[in-house]
């Protein structure tokens, strides 16, 4: 017998939280995979963008343990191509925010060697700090 997928109230609450943060109707995704096929960072990811969306639909908090939303460069290739009009980049931002709003940072700027830090343009640093620190 096939395993039965049970959606608990915790699962529903997680989907509701990400829906609220992203402002997106995440349930419209029908898993066509266009976002994954468009993602420039997919080679680095453990969970593809379309899998990430599926996990959010099912309210699976484990998605927060994946690298996916931290590798997103907010390039909006997925956003412009989604045939269902879902702004996948906003969902990734919402998933980052769940962690960052607990004041848990993804990067430690002090760990970057001084010579690398010195040559990085400000837009790289400010962009990374905005997306990867709380």
């Amino acid at each position, binding site marked *: 017998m096939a395993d039965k997928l049970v959606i608990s109230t915790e699962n529903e609450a997680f989907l509701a939280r990400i829906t609220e943060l992203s402002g997106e109707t995440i349930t419209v995704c029908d898993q066509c995979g266009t976002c994954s096929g468009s993602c420039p960072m997919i080679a680095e990811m453990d969970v593809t963008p379309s899998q990430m969306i599926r996990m959010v639909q099912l309210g699976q908090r484990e998605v927060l343990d994946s690298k996916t939303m931290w590798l997103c460069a907010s390039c909006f290739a997925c956003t412009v191509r989604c045939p269902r009009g879902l702004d996948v980049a906003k969902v990734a931002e919402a998933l980052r925010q769940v962690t960052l709003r607990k004041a848990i940072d993804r990067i430690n700027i002090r760990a970057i060697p001084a010579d690398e830090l010195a040559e990085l*343009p400000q*837009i790289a640093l400010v962009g990374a700090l905005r997306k990867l620190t709380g």
Partner: protein
Amino acid sequence: MTSEKHNAAQTLEKAGPSKKTRFPYYPGCTLKTTAQNLEASALASAEVLGIELVELPRWNCCGVVSSLADDDLIHHVAPVRNLIRAQEMRAAGVVDGETRLVTLCSMCFNTLKRSNARVKESADDLKTINEFMYLEDDYDGGVDVVHFLEVLRDVGHERISEAVKAPLAGLKVAPYYGCTLLRPKEIGIDDPEAPTIQDDLLRALGAEPVDNPYKKVCCGSYQIVQNRDAVADLAYDILRHARIAGAEAMTTCCPLCAFNLDRSQREIGEKHPDHEPMPVLYITQLMALAFGLPPECMRFDLNYTNPKALLLSTSLAGEEA
């Protein structure tokens, strides 16, 4: 100002209207540091076309990336504060009622335009932000954020061609668009899947634009800070496909794309011995070159992959470059 620069401007003034069009201009942080070559070449080229970009007084960092969380208004404050500066400049009569705010950095463009769109769409959000910045005049939603490439498109590529003194004949250039000029759709300045705005400008300058499918694939953006290898891999693909298509150089309008594509060639060279260095230029540098402006307007010394050999080989470098 050099005599050469004067001459180019005077030539155009004789041919066309002599009145200068003044625009409020937002530079952004990076144009004052690693991308001084973008600013210098754009301002000088604009002047040749009778356009003066008047820097906003007291501008502040736009935040680089737009806040995407629905409930996060605080990160729209910095962009909107800059829009208030543009509004003030117009009210002071400095820019002849011009409502457009011109940007050069693609990331600043995207962030300012997205915040502007949000407060134009939501009266509630605008009210909240205005109340938060109670020491400022209220923003009235009357500013339009544009990119310099759009201003050039409005000037008309025919008129730009007329200003060319040293056509970039024979130079095969891959225009790289990246993300923030094109996406999302409602913010982008061109077709997000088939952009041509840089191609058209390159053609007007006498260069030969080279098409390739990687021209709108992200270079990795701010991931350079935590993930240099992944960015180098992306840059390798982007540069390699431009090379395969026949390009000798690449152009961009984004100081972060420029850094990722140009600086990463150091790592790419170590990892891929077959990599042939490719100059990555701001499109405005090529425009200044084609307009016959002096080297201090191009600042090729700030490009990591030195373009001088290429430009000399195509007799474009000019006597001093």
